[in-house]
């Protein structure tokens, strides 16, 4: 009934007005004489109106669509992709390879960042998506990799090709360090401990001035060279991009492979039912530690790429916000979907970078996007699981 829709919208507007009244209605003004209030009550009226109108539009839309099967565009995309997934994957690779020749340096720089987050997403996917271990401090491994690479390069002049895997190794050790204490912990307890771990690493990085440079971080990180020759910035950006791309493709192949191997299936079984795993002879300790170690190693490698992309790192790049963003990428993409992670990374990393100018609103939009996408597609953009082995033969 139209009348119900109107009443509902008016109520929504009223609630919005009440919510807006303190924070929007009055502004705290700090002046020489102290704090005072500056009223902005007209803004409250506008906010209430906007909410009421939006709610009304939503109600109308819902009524119009009621009873009609309107397949959501992404559901269609998902279905079509399922069949065309390999082709879609190759297409994306082709675009990625051609990118530096088509776009300017800034775009290539952003694309490099997106690729780094793709690697982070796949790494976290092993821990959260496959093994079912809710890790909220993943950025710690990212940080460890970045700092390890920076320090190794600065103090021992290690080349990029040596430093990068070493950074991954150091991060893997940290992964084991986190894995041990959380072995016995149930899901959400594990989450808070991993969160604490992430924060601890950040705090240590910020305070241990002698080694990590404190809040100012490490700068003048040696850039990679091409057979010992330094490269001009334009070329270097493209070089780094291709190296990251190559490694991302290798990681993709390895992860896809792992999922079809005993260890990958065992991780998923662990996520499904740990007790059943034990009853079949699977050792959860080994599975959890290996998930953490491999996931951390991937983050460490991504960290080394981050270090050479920026040339400079500081603790503030590795806060909980980072861990949350990476987790969002995994969940938004649809856990278990490699391409999903790529799409989500493009969405959550590429777009905000593009709109860097709108600083404050950018973060607001980021958070809002997280909420909206979850409300719309709780299972992620591309979800659904295919078996890793079929009776009729290998997939």
């Amino acid at each position, binding site marked *: 009934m139209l009348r119900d829709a109107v009443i509902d919208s008016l109520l929504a507007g009223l609630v919005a007005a009440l919510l807006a009244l303190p924070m929007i209605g009055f502004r705290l003004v700090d002046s020489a004489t102290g704090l005072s209030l500056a009223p902005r009550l007209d803004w409250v009226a506008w906010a209430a109106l906007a909410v009421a109108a939006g709610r009304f539009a939503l109600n109308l839309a819902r009524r119009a669509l009621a009873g009609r099967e309107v397949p959501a565009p992404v559901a269609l995309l998902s279905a079509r992709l399922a069949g065309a997934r390999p082709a879609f994957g190759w297409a994306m690779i082709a675009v990625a390879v051609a990118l530096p020749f088509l776009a300017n340096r800034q775009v290539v720089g952003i694309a490099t960042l997106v690729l780094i987050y793709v690697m982070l997403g796949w790494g976290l996917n092993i821990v959260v998506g496959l093994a079912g271990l809710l890790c909220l401090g993943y950025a710690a491994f990212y940080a460890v990799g970045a700092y390890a690479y920076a320090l190794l390069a600065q103090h021992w002049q290690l080349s990029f090709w040596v430093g990068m895997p070493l950074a991954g190794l150091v991060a893997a050790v940290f992964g084991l360090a986190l894995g041990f204490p959380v072995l016995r912990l149930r899901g959400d307890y594990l989450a808070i401990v991993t969160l604490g771990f992430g924060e601890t690493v950040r705090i240590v990085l910020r305070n241990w001035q002698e080694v990590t440079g404190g809040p100012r971080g490490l700068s003048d990180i040696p850039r990679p060279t091409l057979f010992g020759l330094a490269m001009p910035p334009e070329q270097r950006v493209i070089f780094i991009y291709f190296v990251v791309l190559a490694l991302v493709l290798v990681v993709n192949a*390895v992860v896809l*492979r*792992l999922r*079809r*191997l*005993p*260890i*990958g*299936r*065992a991780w*998923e*079984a662990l996520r*499904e*039912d740990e*007790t*059943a*795993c*034990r*009853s*079949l*002879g*699977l*050792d*959860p300790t080994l599975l959890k530690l290996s998930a953490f170690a491999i996931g951390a190693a991937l983050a460490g490698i991504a960290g080394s790429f981050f270090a050479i992309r920026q040339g400079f790192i500081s603790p503030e790049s590795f806060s909980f916000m980072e861990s949350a963003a990476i987790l969002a990428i995994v969940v938004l993409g649809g856990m278990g979907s490699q391409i999903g992670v790529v799409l989500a990374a493009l969405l959550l990393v590429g777009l905000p970078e593009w709109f860097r100018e709108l600083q404050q609103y950018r973060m607001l939009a980021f958070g809002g996007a997280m909420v909206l996408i979850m409300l719309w597609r709780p299972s992620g953009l591309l979800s659904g*699981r295919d*078996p*890793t*082995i*079929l*009776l*009729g033969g290998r997939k």
Partner: protein
Amino acid sequence: MTGGPLLRVEHVSMRFGGLLAVNDLSFDAEAGRITAVIGPNGAGKTTLFNCITGFYKPQVGRITLDHPKGPLLLERMSDHRIAAEAGVARTFQNIRLFPRMSVLENLIVAQHTRLMRASWFSLAGLLGLARYRDAEAQAVATARRWLDRLGLTPHADEEAAALPYGMQRRLEIARALCTGPLLLCLDEPAAGLNPRESAELNRLLIDIRDQEGIGLLLIEHDMSVVMGISDRIVVLDYGKKIAEGTPDHIRHDPAVIRAYLGESEDEDLPPEVAADVGEGDPC
């Protein structure tokens, strides 16, 4: 193998705070035999299972498994080691499958230990070595064998959670068998099955006993199953063993009747219960 019983439970007691769930329990289970553990609800049957399979650690007692490589003391081994090394497999009272994995994947995971060893912890698989490919093919063959035996082959690639209840129970049994056990522990395998399915289950368990030569330990309430196929029955009440013997012996044991029906010994069993307990025609 020493020639003694496959499983020997000696003076096992399990306490939870103030409650003594299993009280000084001793019995044997032979290979190639079906041993049933029965008793009223709360008698300690599943607790016993959990002690045998390592999910609980009894405070007192010894549980010995006669393994070809030598006897193993199960009471101090962890649950996954008992499954992997001692060859003791089990199913659960409330089915525990891997719901979002396919039927076939459930069976492949069951062979994990063997596959990991064959693939050098998956490394051989990563490198694409034939060693791993062969091991995986072998695992699929084993899985196929049990799929066929339990009538699940058409559903091999379906999600486990999508199967009807009876098939989920069968899948759980198939999965346990894929581990290649010496002792198979089944916790209420007939729960929720209709009479036809129970009869099929009976045939299946007898087949397994005869063809695989393994020992079967069974918790069950369905007397048509228990009386129909058990070689030996152990009766528990309040954690203690109150009777042990052949189905015939148990059927007439006064202590058993008392435990199930209460104190009044003079009463005859009501006809329905008598039929269940096998005074009438067994299934």
